[in-house]
């Protein structure tokens, strides 16, 4: 039994509090979910354009219950990219907010309420879809790539159970949304809290808006999750001075948070009687793989912690041999029921079964200390975390090259540096790339250089750029 199949048992308990203060019980949530779900057939493919709203969540739950495969897409997605994706995957339905721009794709509205419409497309495609496939999510960042992570019913449910266990989630908990629900970290908060009959404050407001702080107080949020950048914002807003008596737990994932900031939040949270929990995960592992038990927050400062309940980590050297010694860096490998089925890059991939068999090579380098705690030491692949989203540097380079710019991309998290040769219109380039991949301009720097350093075989020497 998966959690969403029997959450009607929480009946008149609150499931969602909307940004306008509407209170949605579990009964009402399931009613709406099934109202949408009844139009969906087993193995239909649904593209959902998500907002942090009641209807959006109901569509997600409705599709899971109807055993239709749902693909969650944030509503700020570039319209060209969305159309490309729709044409590529030919979903049977598009579930979209009435306020969003109508897509230039034919279809009939089969269900509609004041906020959302379910549009049946004219692709009329009977997809061959694997029976375990539940959900398609982008790998956080979107550099125009058509790659999705394939998550199964078991992935979603087992990860929600593990998270609920280690965070000791109770029906009294009440997290507030700080990220879009199409983002795996936020979705894991939704899943794990619904599993326990807790209530979620769904808002699209950001920390930089007064509305957000009004909601957090008024609706008595107890929990709060954020990517590294959110903690920098909290610091800027002088979180230590805020009076939020209901807040008890802060969680952090979506990239490595600077050690000094962790230390600062450890201290603030201790003085306010809150727990600050550092975690680690990837969309490829549904969401979560590790957490640092809060009791160890100070003793193991900078650690990503230990595997979640049911999971297991080890390290491998360059020859894929297990590293037995402690304090040696190697590739972090994870095993657990939450390791997803694999990727989809085209419609045919939806028929694929489990390619990972429960084992994920994370692409992150880590070491293990003598007490069994893990520490991230680097990355094997060329990508950056930009405000929590994964951005592949080679893909950014490609995007710029197809526009005719000769460049190389490097940098650090939240700071992508584009190295250019020749004469370019800086503003134009920045605007293009930031729109294309949906990352704020503030995250980019441009530097002009005479030549892009290359080795004899023409490979860019990224280490020489700085």
């Amino acid at each position, binding site marked *: 039994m998966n959690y969403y199949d029997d959450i009607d048992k929480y009946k008149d308990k609150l499931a969602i509090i909307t940004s306008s203060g509407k209170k949605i019980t579990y009964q009402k949530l399931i009613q709406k979910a099934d109202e949408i779900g009844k139009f969906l057939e087993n193995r239909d493919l649904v593209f959902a354009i998500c907002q942090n709203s009641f209807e959006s969540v109901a569509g997600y739950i409705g599709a899971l219950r109807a055993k239709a495969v749902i693909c969650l897409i944030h509503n700020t997605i570039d319209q060209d990219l969305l159309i490309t994706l729709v044409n590529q995957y030919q979903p049977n339905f598009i579930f979209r907010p009435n306020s969003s721009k109508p897509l230039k794709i034919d279809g009939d509205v089969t269900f509609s309420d004041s906020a959302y419409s379910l549009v049946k497309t004219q692709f009329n495609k009977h997809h061959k879809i694997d029976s375990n496939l539940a959900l398609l999510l982008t790998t956080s960042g979107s550099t125009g790539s058509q790659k999705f992570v394939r998550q199964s019913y078991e992935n979603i449910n087992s990860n929600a159970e593990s998270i609920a266990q280690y965070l000791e989630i109770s029906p009294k908990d009440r997290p507030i949304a700080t990220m879009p629900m199409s983002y795996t970290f936020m979705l894991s908060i939704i899943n794990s809290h619904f599993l326990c009959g807790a209530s979620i404050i769904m808002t699209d407001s950001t920390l930089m808006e*007064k509305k957000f702080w009004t909601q957090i107080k008024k609706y008595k949020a107890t929990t709060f999750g954020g990517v590294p950048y959110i903690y920098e914002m909290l610091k800027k807003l002088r979180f230590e001075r805020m009076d939020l008596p209901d807040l008890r737990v802060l969680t952090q994932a979506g990239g490595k948070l600077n050690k000094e900031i962790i230390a600062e939040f450890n201290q603030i949270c201790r003085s306010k009687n809150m727990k600050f929990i550092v975690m680690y995960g990837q969309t490829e592992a549904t969401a979560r793989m590790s957490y640092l038990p809060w009791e160890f927050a100070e003793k193991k400062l900078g650690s990503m912690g230990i595997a979640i309940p049911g999971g297991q980590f080890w390290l491998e050297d360059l020859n894929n041999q297990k590293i037995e010694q402690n304090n040696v860096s190697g590739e972090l490998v994870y095993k657990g029921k939450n390791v997803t089925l694999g990727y989809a890059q085209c419609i045919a991939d939806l028929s694929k079964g489990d390619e990972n068999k429960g084992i994920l090579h994370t692409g992150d380098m880590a070491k293990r200390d003598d007490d069994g705690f893990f520490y991230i030491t680097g990355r094997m692949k060329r990508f950056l975390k930009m405000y929590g989203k994964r951005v592949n540097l080679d893909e950014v380079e490609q995007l710029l090259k197809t526009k005719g710019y000769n460049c190389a991309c490097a940098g650090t998290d939240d700071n992508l540096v584009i190295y250019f040769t020749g004469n370019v219109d800086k503003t134009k380039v920045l605007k293009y790339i930031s729109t294309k991949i949906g990352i*704020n*301009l503030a995250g980019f720097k441009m530097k002009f250089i005479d030549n892009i350093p290359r080795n004899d075989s023409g490979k860019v020497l990224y280490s020489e750029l700085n």
Partner: protein
Amino acid sequence: MNNQEKYNQAFMENFSIEASKLNAELEYNTIPEWDSVGHMSLIASLEEAFEIMLETDDVIDFSSYNKGKEILKKYKIEM
């Protein structure tokens, strides 16, 4: 540069927009550049340009081009 110019420059540089866009309609979230990340960098630029430190309430109240001018008055920045 006078205060008005400094103020405008912070918007134009952070959001990469033209002077013609600086008006009463320019509000938080009305352009993609002015999201929470853009807001942080705008505030940082203004704090640096005017050598001030904004209070939390002022940071989250700073919801439009015009509102910002009002807020800066509290810090004795007249335009």
